Structures are given as structure tokens and as C-alpha cells.
């Protein structure tokens, strides 16, 4: 088995499993006043401090959520509503066409139902938004902008955005900016304080923590309108009883991911470079997606388009040989659509149908890369025979 889909989810770290299973046996609602509640609250608050440290934030800036999708929805919708309520002129939402669907569909929904004017700022051929493009858009009429949202690193092609520069531009105009840092966390130095962002999304299961837990790092000046109403937990922004075992395990994973990051990034980056070279050797006309400069892309990401192939066919052929990867594009009922990310970067639509994303992680070995190196050439040859249907 060669698991090369860590960007989808990565195995939990043993230390995180240990922290989680220990807490599963403990009773306590972190909102209760009695001893059991206090015990649970202590676990939560220690986890909050640990996460804050790992992501360069203050503990009070950590809002626990159910994961990346919820954090994105809370930031995008909540900030939009709050900013528009404070000044009804603020209906513009500035974003990019390469965002994850959790942002893309949320802003689309705001446009359809809440009167938002969504502007998809053009990105370059690597999927990167230039700060000048953002400045021009903001300068047109800054008083009408509700928020900016632009991802830290792209989940398909791995392109890293100049987030701090973009956030600085937004701050020039006093407009809050959100960034989805789900893929960046654990691979890049991600500091909420240094970024200058108003809000930032992170997720547990992409960094060796459990599923179903994430956080929105939220500057203390910002009070998004809640998406979930209820008991008023998490700064009145996100109601719901906290999942103490998941919170504890998430914090352990974040701490370890932070401690091991630079070593991990170097090691996984070297393996990724070998993988890229192996694919180029086996399939000379394969097209690398995203930034060819390793400094400009996530160290664990490789993305290729294979001319004349259906991504689906390649996936099936590799899966049958125990090599697990992704076409990288979103699915509707399992039907692969040409990736919106590739289309936004100007890729030919036919080429965009034959993509594979290989994402490495903390369990990836050279043997995994070698297995892929051996299988990819014949798989591409066979998929080309099957052609584009």
C-alpha cells in the first residue's frame, strides 16, 4: 500500500490517539460548574493554550469548531453579516477563484441569498493572488468591502499565497481578511499574529489529529454573527458542547506538528522532489501543476496533468495496484468535474481532466515513491488507450 493522499486526511499521530482515548473515558461537560465540569474545562483550556502557541495566537483567539468547513463558513458568513450589519454599504466580498469549496460555496451562497457582490480576483498561472490586484480591488471603493478571504496554500496544486502581504493590504483599508490555512498548517510556519489576519481556519485531521475538530483563529476585535446559535460557548460565536477528547488530541497534534515542522518539511520535500522527478522520467509530457519553484509550493504536494488521460482512469489503475491518490478535483456524486483551480489558472479543459494530486505525509516512505515511480508509466499508457470519453 502506498498512501499518497495525506492532503485528504493523514494518519493520526500515536500521541494524539493516546490523548484522545484517555479523555474518552473521562466524564465532564466543559460548561458545567461542578468538579467534573472543571476537570473537562481544564483540559480544554490547556488545549487552547497549546494550540494558540502552535499557531502563534493568543488563547482567547482560538474558537473550536467541527473542522475546516465550519471554520470557513463561520468566518465568511459571520464576518459578512457582522460587517454589513454595522454598515449596510459593505456588501462586496473579495476572494479568488481557486478557494476550497468550503469558502467558494459559502461566498456563492452569500451572493445568492444575502445580497453579497462576490468578486473573484484573478490569480496567476500558479494560482497565486498578487497583492497589487487586491489593492486595486480594495481601492475602488473600500467602504463597500465586507471582507477579503484568500487561502494560505492551495489544496490541489499546493501554491503558497503571500498571505502576510495580502493581509497588510487589507489592513491598509481597514478591511478584515480571512484565510483558510488547512493545508498550510503543519507544512509552513503559520503564525496568526505575524500574518495580520482577522481570522484563520485550521483543521485537526490534516495535521495528525482527529476528524471532526478544527478551529477558527479569530482576532479579538472581531465578532462574527454566529452560524450556530445555542448555549453561547466559544465567545458566543460558536455554540455547542465541546468535544473534549477531540480538542485534547487536536492540541497534541498541533504541538507536535509545530515542533517537527521544519524537519518534516525538509524530509517530505526531498521525497516530493524525488516523486516529481520519477514522474517526469516515466511520463515526459506530464505537466506539473502549480509553482515549479519548491519555495512557492507546499513541500508535501505534487500535482500533475497527464495529457490524453482521464484522471478517473488513472485513479482506478493505481488504486488496483495499492497506490492511493486523488484526482484533486471536487466531486458531485462521485462524478469528477474539471478542477476549478486548474481552469482558473488557465489550464486547457481537456488537460484539466487528466490530473492527479499526490500528497505526502508523516508516514510516507521512499518505498511509496518507488511504488508510484514503477506504476505510473504503464498506468498512463493504459489510460491513454482508454482516452477521454
Amino acid at each position, binding site marked *: 500500500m502506498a498512501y499518497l493522499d495525506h492532503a485528504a486526511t493523514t494518519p493520526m499521530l500515536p500521541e494524539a490517539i493516546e490523548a484522545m482515548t484517555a479523555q474518552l473515558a473521562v466524564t465532564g461537560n466543559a460548561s458545567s460548574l461542578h468538579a467534573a465540569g472543571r476537570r473537562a474545562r481544564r483540559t480544554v483550556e490547556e488545549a487552547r493554550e497549546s494550540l494558540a502557541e502552535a499557531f502563534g495566537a493568543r488563547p482567547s483567539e482560538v474558537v473550536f469548531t467541527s473542522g475546516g468547513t465550519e471554520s470557513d463558513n463561520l468566518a465568511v458568513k459571520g464576518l459578512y453579516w457582522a460587517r454589513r450589519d454595522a454598515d449596510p454599504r459593505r456588501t462586496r466580498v473579495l476572494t479568488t477563484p481557486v478557494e476550497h469549496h468550503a469558502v467558494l460555496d459559502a461566498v456563492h451562497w452569500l451572493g445568492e441569498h444575502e445580497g453579497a457582490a462576490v468578486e473573484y480576483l484573478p490569480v496567476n498561472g500558479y494560482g497565486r493572488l498578487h497583492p497589487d490586484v487586491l489593492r486595486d480591488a480594495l481601492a475602488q471603493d473600500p467602504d463597500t468591502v465586507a471582507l477579503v478571504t484568500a487561502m494560505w496554500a492551495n489544496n490541489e496544486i499546493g501554491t503558497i499565497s503571500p498571505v502576510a502581504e495580502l493581509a497588510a493590504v487589507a489592513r491598509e483599508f481597514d478591511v478584515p481578511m480571512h484565510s483558510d490555512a488547512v493545508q498550510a498548517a503543519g507544512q509552513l510556519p503559520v503564525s496568526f499574529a505575524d500574518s495580520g489576519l482577522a481570522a484563520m481556519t485550521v483543521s485537526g485531521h490534516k495535521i495528525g489529529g482527529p476528524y471532526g475538530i478544527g478551529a477558527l483563529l479569530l482576532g479579538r476585535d472581531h465578532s462574527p454573527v454566529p452560524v450556530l446559535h445555542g448555549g453561547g460557548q466559544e465567545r458566543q460565536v460558536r455554540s455547542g458542547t465541546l468535544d473534549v477528547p477531540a480538542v485534547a488530541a487536536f492540541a497534541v497534534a498541533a504541538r507536535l506538528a509545530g515542533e517537527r515542522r521544519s524537519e518534516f518539511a525538509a524530509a517530505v520535500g526531498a521525497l516530493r522532489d524525488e516523486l516529481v522527478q520519477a514522474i517526469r522520467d516515466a511520463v515526459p509530457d506530464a505537466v506539473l501543476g502549480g509553482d515549479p519553484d519548491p519555495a512557492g509550493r507546499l513541500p508535501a504536494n505534487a500535482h500533475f496533468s497527464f495529457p490524453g488521460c482521464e484522471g*478517473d*482512469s488513472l*485513479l*482506478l*489503475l493505481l*488504486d*488496483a495496484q495499492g497506490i492511493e491518490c486523488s484526482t484533486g478535483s471536487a466531486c*458531485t*456524486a*462521485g*462524478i*469528477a468535474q474539471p478542477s476549478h483551480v486548474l481552469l482558473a489558472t488557465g489550464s486547457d479543459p481537456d488537460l484539466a481532466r487528466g490530473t492527479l494530486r499526490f500528497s505526502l505525509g508523516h508516514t510516507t516512505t521512499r518505498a511509496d515513491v518507488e511504488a508510484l515511480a514503477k506504476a505510473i508509466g504503464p498506468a498512463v499508457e*493504459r*489510460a491513454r*488507450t*482508454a*482516452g477521454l*470519453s
Partner: protein
Amino acid sequence: MTQTSQRPLRVLAAMSGGVDSAVAAARAAEAGHDVTGVHLALSANPQSFRTGARGCCTIEDSRDARRAADVIGIPFYVWDLAERFREDVVDDFVAEYEAGRTPNPCLRCNEKIKFAALLDKALALGFDAVCTGHYATVVAAEDGSRELHRASDMAKDQSYVLGVLDEKQLAHAMFPLGDTLTTKDEIRAEAERRGLAVAKKPDSHDICFIADGDTQGFLAQRLGRAEGDIVDESGARLGTHEGAYGFTIGQRKGLRIGHPAPDGKPRYVLDISPVSNTVTVGPAEALDVTALTAIKPRWCGAAPTGPGAYTAQLRAHGGETEVTAEMADGELKVSFATPVRGVAPGQAIVLYDGTRVVGSATIATTVRRTAVTA
């Protein structure tokens, strides 16, 4: 005759999300084949949920198929063949009706999608065969060639809709449900025993791409309304219609002619003329067809030489009738021992020699016992 090879094959099982294809895939896997499930997405804008018992193109069906594959323990993928399906099946269906003919889209789908687009892709990807939940039997003749036969249970037989397959297609077809005497209840019981949740799912009927079953509405939306005359055999105008495509030869209901025929007998659609946009009606006797010609023949094996006696089936759930058939001038000429009714151009005629499918062709013209003069 022997059953087809039991050598383990790499099999691609087409899984609609229904009970038949799920049990077929399970049987193929149990027989030791290396089975991969695939659901064909045939609609560009799938509906979220099934409405009634119709349709095979919803997201729910895709999930049902996926769940069945999980239980069987086989890999599962969804392949998007919506564009090919629209071009080869849906557009053809509409065009045939527009030309006054009555097509069978299921045959067309088997010929162009399941055992062409899907089979070609499967073979290219290294599979040996495509497996479906059809009730029919493939047997290897003594000379090694493949023959398509009726299902063991004549009541469930679906060889008619597979009559378009040629020998090459048959060589890569697998119908695990065809060779057992199994009632639908027994298939459902087998699904239940195998832990397949689709065991209780209602059967699909009608045309999968017309979710609400309203074929006339579907055609009206695409072809528009075009008012024309309903006339009798003498040409006398009896009423009007909103589009000749809305009628099928042999149709009795829905003519909406205010007054009865002079002899008081019911009237039937005898002829549809798209050029003059006229529908001709008349008595049942005028529907009697004694002979027909059919085009685009497809043979399962060698084409017949000279006139021969066969049995013929003219529609999916129709009975058998004795015919004499021969190829002449590239057309199949068929004459019936006893006149048959309700034969419409566009329908497929499938010829059988006993239980063996000889071939099929598309009905082009019919010869009536009484000439339709209008």
C-alpha cells in the same frame, strides 16, 4: 453447448443502484472474478432523490450502488457518460419521435453506452468483461463462438433489449442473473441474505431519463407544440392534436375525438405523418400488419442466408410470433404467419431460433392487411 468460462476474469460490473445489478455483481465476485463496480452517471444534472419507482440517474441511486459495492467488498467508481448518453440515446430518442417513429432507448443504451462506450473503456483499462443485471444467457457454442439466449425464466427474459449486441460485444458480456430460474422475490431474498440494502428497493420502470414518466411532456418541451389534424382513413378531419409526436401507432386512449365512429367501434392511431403533421385513426382491423421491412440489422453471429423460419419479438414485454425472414437489398424482409397489431416504425424486431437470439433490426415500414389511404 457449455457455460462460459469460469477462469477468473477482471470484470467491470455496471451498477445502477438497483437490486438486479447489485446481485449480479455479488454473484460475479462470489464466482471468483476480480470485480470492480462502476455506476454510470448518465444525467448532467442528477436529481437528489428518486421520485417514485423511476429513474436510474439520481445521486441517491449512485449512493445505493456505492453502498452495495462496499458490502460486496469491491472497488467502486462513478463514470460520467452523460455527454455520450445525451448524444447517442436522448437526442436520438427525440429525433425518432420527431420523425414519427417509436424508438426503444434501452436497446440503444445497451448498444451504444453499456456495451460500447463502457465496454471499450473497460477493455482499454485491462478488464475482460462487463457484467450487468440483465436476465439473459451467454453460452459458448461448440465452435467457441458466443451465443445470446433467452433467460432460463422466460417471464423475466430481457434478451430483447440485448438483441443489438454483436458477437464481439457478447464475447465480453456477463449476465450472472440469466442462467438461474429465479423469481424477483428470490433475487430480493438473495440480496437480503447478502446484506444488500437495495433488497427492498422498488423496480425501475419506464424510461430512466424521463424521471416523472411523462414522455409526452418531455417531448413537448423539446419539440414544442405543433397543432395538426386528426383524420380518418378517408381523410375527413375528426379533430386536432398538439403534436404528432405525441402518438404511437396502435394507441387508443387520449385521441380526444368528440364523436364516435359511425359503426360505434373504438378508433386507433393507424399512421403518423410528421411531414403533414397528421395523425390518421381508424378501426382495429386496419392495424393488422402482415409484413414489414427493417433496417440497420445487427447479428449475433453469422447473418442468415436465404429465407428462414424464426420467432420474432416486437417489444420489450411482448410475446413471440412466427415469422419468415430474409435479407434482401440490405433490408430485413419479414412476413408474419398471423397478422400482428401495434407495430410501429422505429421499434426493434428481434429474431430468435428457439431460445437463441439471431439478431435484430429497426422496423422501417409495415404492410397492412387493409391499406391506410389517408
